[in-house]
């Protein structure tokens, strides 16, 4: 075995990528936050920030081991939880994973766990107790994300000797998380929306986005952050990273056009919310495929994702589930489109590139396995939390607004004429 040495180019790119992925958390918070009514903005943003804080702490304790530890019994289901307990042996300045410091790889991958959990929050806008959400975030990361990430991201002989079944036995291609991140979060979003039930007035009261500029800013930040997410998944500063970056732009631009075209034909107007949604749909769909296709393939994936996601946003009204911000239509549908289309347009392996149907079948099995596991496990976790703690705020709290009810804060103070007394019941520090 050749001696592994640190590559400074790889390390520099992965340090930057980690910073970029961190930017996706406020990006998502703004993307979601702009879409809710003004009375729920802070809670929407807090669900993303809360998920980041809690999940990364669990990641350090056991998460990294569950994903990248040796597969228990070599079955490819879950990593050895105690192998790197509190990052034992890795949280120093000399340990390497691949050609980069272990510390950087751990930070980068930990943020994937956090953003995946945060994505789910879009399906339960306006109505979830913050404490219940936090318990859910920790439980879901541990029981759903970590196992699934082990299946998909833990390659044999990379961090540990044995890895997950989708990566090594099935051989489904998922470069940056079409299954582990997006199908996973999308299926969980659907399950959680079913557990919590519809918002008061769903389908009857207008629930308009309170700030489309915030939505567009959030989508733009997600786009920039996604370069770290996708091109960083090369874990190297090389041609694969470059191709992933190009394809990430190509698919996203095609998806924006496709989404707007659907809107223009169906609704008569191309909207800014449609453009922002197209951005995210394209980013989601190219995530698994960004290193497996050429630019034309990326355009095809982006265009199909933009179209199908735009057509899927009406399903919640048809079937009566309140997936408030369309986590299902964007992440589940987009994730499936990207993962399955690799079987058609993947270079060398895809059906259209003479690769036969083997890869296509693997892609479908991988997508279906993650979807089924995530959906069922989330139903169980969500229902358990609901039975023990109650997942929803009260009817009146919801009508008044979750920001005031749960966080005792208001997003905007436009008119500064209602100040009250700063000291009247302050439990914290003096002004």
């Amino acid at each position: 075995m050749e001696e592994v040495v640190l590559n400074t180019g790889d390390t520099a790119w992965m340090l930057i990528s980690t910073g970029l992925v961190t930017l996706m958390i406020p990006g998502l918070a703004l993307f979601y936050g702009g879409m809710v009514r003004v009375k729920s903005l802070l809670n929407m943003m807090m669900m993303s920030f809360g998920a980041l804080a809690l999940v990364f702490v669990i990641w350090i304790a056991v998460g990294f081991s569950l994903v990248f530890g040796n597969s228990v019994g070599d079955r490819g289901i879950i990593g050895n939880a105690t192998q790197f307990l509190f990052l034992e042996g890795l949280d120093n300045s000399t340990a390497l994973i691949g050609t980069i410091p272990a510390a950087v790889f751990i930070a980068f991958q930990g943020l994937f766990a956090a953003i995946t959990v945060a994505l789910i929050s879009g399906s339960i806008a306006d109505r979830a107790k913050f404490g219940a959400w936090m318990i859910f975030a920790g439980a879901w990361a541990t029981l759903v994300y970590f196992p699934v990430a082990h299946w998909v991201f833990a390659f044999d002989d990379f961090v540990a000797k044995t890895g997950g079944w989708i990566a090594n036995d099935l051989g489904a291609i998922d470069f940056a998380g079409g299954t582990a991140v997006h199908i996973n979060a999308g299926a969980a979003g659907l399950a959680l929306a079913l557990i919590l039930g519809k918002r008061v007035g769903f389908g009857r009261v207008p629930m308009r986005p309170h700030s489309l500029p915030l939505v567009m800013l959030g989508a733009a930040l997600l786009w920039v952050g996604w370069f770290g997410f996708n091109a960083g998944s090369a874990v190297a500063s090389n041609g694969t990273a470059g191709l992933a970056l190009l394809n990430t732009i190509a698919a996203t631009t095609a998806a924006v056009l496709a989404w707007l075209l659907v809107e223009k034909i169906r609704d008569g107007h191309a909207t800014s919310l449609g453009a922002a949604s197209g951005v995210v749909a394209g980013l989601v769909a190219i995530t698994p495929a960004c290193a497996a296709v050429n630019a034309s393939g990326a355009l095809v994936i982006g265009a199909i994702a933009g179209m199908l996601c735009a057509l899927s946003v009406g399903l919640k009204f048809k079937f009566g589930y309140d997936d408030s911000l369309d986590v299902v239509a964007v992440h589940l549908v987009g994730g499936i489109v990207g993962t399955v289309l690799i079987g058609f347009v993947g270079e060398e392996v895809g059906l259209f590139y003479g690769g036969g149907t083997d890869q296509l079948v693997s892609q479908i099995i991988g997508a279906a396995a993650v979807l089924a596991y995530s959906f069922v496990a989330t139903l169980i976790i969500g229902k358990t939390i609901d039975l023990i703690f109650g997942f929803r705020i009260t009817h009146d709290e919801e009508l008044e607004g979750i920001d005031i009810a749960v966080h005792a804060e208001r997003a905007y103070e436009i008119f500064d004429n209602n100040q009250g007394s700063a000291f009247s019941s302050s439990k914290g520090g003096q002004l």
Partner: protein
Amino acid sequence: MKLITAIIKPFKLDEVKDALQAAGITGMTVSEASGFGRQMGHTEVYRGTEYEVNLLPKIRLEILVDEPNVESALALIVKAANTGSIGDGKVWTTPVDQVVRVRTGERGAAAI
């Protein structure tokens, strides 16, 4: 003295204000309001979902006017705020018992 209250389309505010100022009527209070009359609302579309929005943004003007100027002020407002299409708004007057200027304590017409 009369209080003129005018509900007009927001983009007509400047024209109304300029017309009144040119005629020597120099004070007014402007607030943002929302409401509907015969125009009802309009349709907005978000991710393919259509919402009937029937409270539309309007501007509410409140102007105190001395009796001799009431008719001309009404005419100026109606002329400046008119677009000829539905939703242009309404203007009405109400009698005012007393007006006091806060700074000087002047009362009645002198306070306008």
